């Protein structure tokens, strides 16, 4: 009997290691779907460029270190600012012309922008990954008794929780956030109160893009820095968004983490299915709860 159990259940350290990987992936799903939700709430646009902006964030960290000697901690601040500013330029140059059109055009335009950015990076750096080493203060591992926790991975989980909670706090609990939420509901009315809504929209896009870039910097030492890292993750994040629905900030955070964990578990019990697990879950959720778990239906 016991031997049967041994076959069915993998050893605890292996299980915990996969769960940790799942949690890390989940942290990135959460940060990225959060940014998508923030942008969608304000602009009514699904930002297909989100994956590229995440990739550029990672590249930014890599290039800052390589050419300017700027370390990881500074990159955590500089990269989101640079990429966020770049996002603002994109919004002013292209995206703002689409607010009056069908949402579909926003998806098409940002898809085109993603193709341009990824093509350019692939042309310059090829498809293989570039290494970015873990900052010295975060190397090594804790022994938790039942497993070794690499310090950097622990840091990513903590950092992503701080970022997610911070974003939630700003949007749901501050005056600025209340303007944002009001402008999402009725931009004309908020504008009539003297709030500069177009500027708020621009800054929101910049903020969402900066979030993606921040996630990219956090990802750089874990996954290799590669032009393809964005396009691989963005479709999974879309599925996460369909499952969670974009109506709620906490909802997208929660679904990101939970789905990352489920994906990690699948890797333990049925490795071949791990890449499809989230999509299968999406299909099932569509059957039983078509609007998603925290969804409000948008057209």
């Amino acid at each position, binding site marked *: 009997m016991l031997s049967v159990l041994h076959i069915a259940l993998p050893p605890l350290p292996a299980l915990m290691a996969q769960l940790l990987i799942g949690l890390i992936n989940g942290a990135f799903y959460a940060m990225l779907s959060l940014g998508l939700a923030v942008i969608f709430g304000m602009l009514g646009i699904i930002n297909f460029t989100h994956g590229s902006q995440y990739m550029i964030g990672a590249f930014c960290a890599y290039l800052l270190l390589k050419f300017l000697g700027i370390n990881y901690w500074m990159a955590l601040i500089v990269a989101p600012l640079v990429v966020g500013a770049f996002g603002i330029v994109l919004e002013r140059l292209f995206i703002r012309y689409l607010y009056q059109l069908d*949402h579909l055009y926003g998806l*098409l335009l940002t898809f085109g*922008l993603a193709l341009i950015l990824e093509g350019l990076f692939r042309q310059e750096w090829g498809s293989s990954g570039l290494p970015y080493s873990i900052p010295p203060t975060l190397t090594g591992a804790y022994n938790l008794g039942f497993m070794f926790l690499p310090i950097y991975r622990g840091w990513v989980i903590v950092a992503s929780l701080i970022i997610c909670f911070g974003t939630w706090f700003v949007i749901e609990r501050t005056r600025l956030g209340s303007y944002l939420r009001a402008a999402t509901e009725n931009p004309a009315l908020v504008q009539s109160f003297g709030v500069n809504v177009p500027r708020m929209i621009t800054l929101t896009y910049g903020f969402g893009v900066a979030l993606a870039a921040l996630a990219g910097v956090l990802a750089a030492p874990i996954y290799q820095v590669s032009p393809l890292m964005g396009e691989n993750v963005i479709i999974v994040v879309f599925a996460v968004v369909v499952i969670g629905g974009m109506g709620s900030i906490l909802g997208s955070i929660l679904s990101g983490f939970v789905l990352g964990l489920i994906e990690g578990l699948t890797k333990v019990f049925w490795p071949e299915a791990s890449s499809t697990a989230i999509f299968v879950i999406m299909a099932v959720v569509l059957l039983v709860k078509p609007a998603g778990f925290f969804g409000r239906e948008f057209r």
Partner: protein
Amino acid sequence: MRSALAATSEVRFAARRAAGLVLLAAALGAPFVFYPVFVMKALCFALFASAFNLLIGYVGLASFGHAAFFGWAAYATAFAVKSWGLPPLPGILLGTALAAAMGLVFGWLAIRRQGIYFAMITLALAQMMYFVAVEAKFTGGEDGIQAVPRGRLLGLVDLNDPLAMYYFVLAIFLVGFAILWRTVNSPFGEVLKAIRENEGRAVSLGYRTEHYKLLAFTLSAAISGLAGATKALVFQLASLTDVYFSTSGDVLLMALLGGIGTLFGPTAGAIVMVGMENYLAQFGSWVTVIEGVIFVVCVLTFRRGIVGELARLLPRWFADGHAR
């Protein structure tokens, strides 16, 4: 005495018939001017883009996952023809049937949500099928299914002859295109356009719009599969590229560039894109960059597409173009 209106409509009809004959003559003569495989590729993608356009142009449903139908039909046909020794026609029909079945299931799931959610769901389902293709044994992983025999059509015509193959592909294209044309210009097609314009009103008129959307989705998937299955025989190859989401993006771009919701737009877009890829293949990733630029330019300034703009500029020629 005939009214002026009847006279113009007769002129219009004659002009359109003349245009149709010119196009048909061009299609029949094309392999003598261009490299046949190139024209066959253009025809396959033209059919694929036209099938895709049935959904986005006439029902208003933007699918980001049509590569799944195209690519999986290619796998099914390539496998059946190569491993089971099926003749070309049953092989293609098998691939088409698989795509139709997938379309039925995907459509059933995806039409539960609308707008951009629909796009994301189709994209995610297609990505799932991409990973299944990566993991499955029979697809040959990175190598794909290579050296697929073209076989003999009805046991008579050797399809290894480029011209025979070309006219076979042209016939398939014409059949697929005729089905799409008939669908759009039928009472069923009118209901689809009503759903595109105002789904709520169509519902209030008593139409079960989900049924119409599901049927249109399945038909679009089936014809996409027909195109993919044919492509597998043309190139004698089914590969991961065909199921990857970049192919879904390509077909979207073809429809957008040619003119979403116009009958001939997707064909025009496919010819331009296939031609461009052919000449730019040496520039590597720049092709992706250029595709992105075309996307951006089309969305910002050229939303009617080539045929849509022509229809606006030459109203007498394409008087009932359906450009939005």
